[in-house]
């Protein structure tokens, strides 16, 4: 059980670092948003990993609920960021055609 927790949690941390790197080095908005989502997914993965208590014991429901909350928050932020990006693109297109 500890092995599985460590293995899956470690993968979550790898996702966190990977997303962070991509967020810092890639300029386009869509890539930054994908990077942030992967960073967040890494943290969620850590939480799901520590909730796992082997196949015999029921998992800890508290981290599960936290991740559910986190998923909704992440998609809300993604939607707003994408729409701000679209508005920005419109403004830039207008500037260019002027």
């Amino acid at each position: 059980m500890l092995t599985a927790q460590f293995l899956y949690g470690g993968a979550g941390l790898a996702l966190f670092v990977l997303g962070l790197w991509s967020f810092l080095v890639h300029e386009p908005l869509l890539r930054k948003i994908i990077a942030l989502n992967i960073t967040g997914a890494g943290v969620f993965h850590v939480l799901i990993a520590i909730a796992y208590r082997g196949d015999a014991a029921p998992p800890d429901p508290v981290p599960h609920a936290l991740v559910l909350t986190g998923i909704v928050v992440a998609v809300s932020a993604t939607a707003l960021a994408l729409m701000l990006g679209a508005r920005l693109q419109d403004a830039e297109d207008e500037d260019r055609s002027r």
Partner: protein
Amino acid sequence: MSQSTLLIVFDGVLLVTLLALAAAAVLSPEPRRAVMLFIAFGLWLALIWARLQAPDVALAEAAIGAGLGGALMLAAARRAARSAASPDRERQP
């Protein structure tokens, strides 16, 4: 003993695939492709969470994270492609 080793190999394959999908999504410069890979990543993540006995979260991730998040990103990728294709994209000198 051998069964638990098998399980660890199984877990390892699941996780390596997950990381590969994430890396591919992050490294793809083409927006549409990146989003597709991100959706695949989200669905794979849901699969792993189901394996970790988190079916509630797996459902939510598949439907909200990968599904609706992916749909929103696809729409954005389409917009970006349209804007890049429009003729007045060229900058005036």
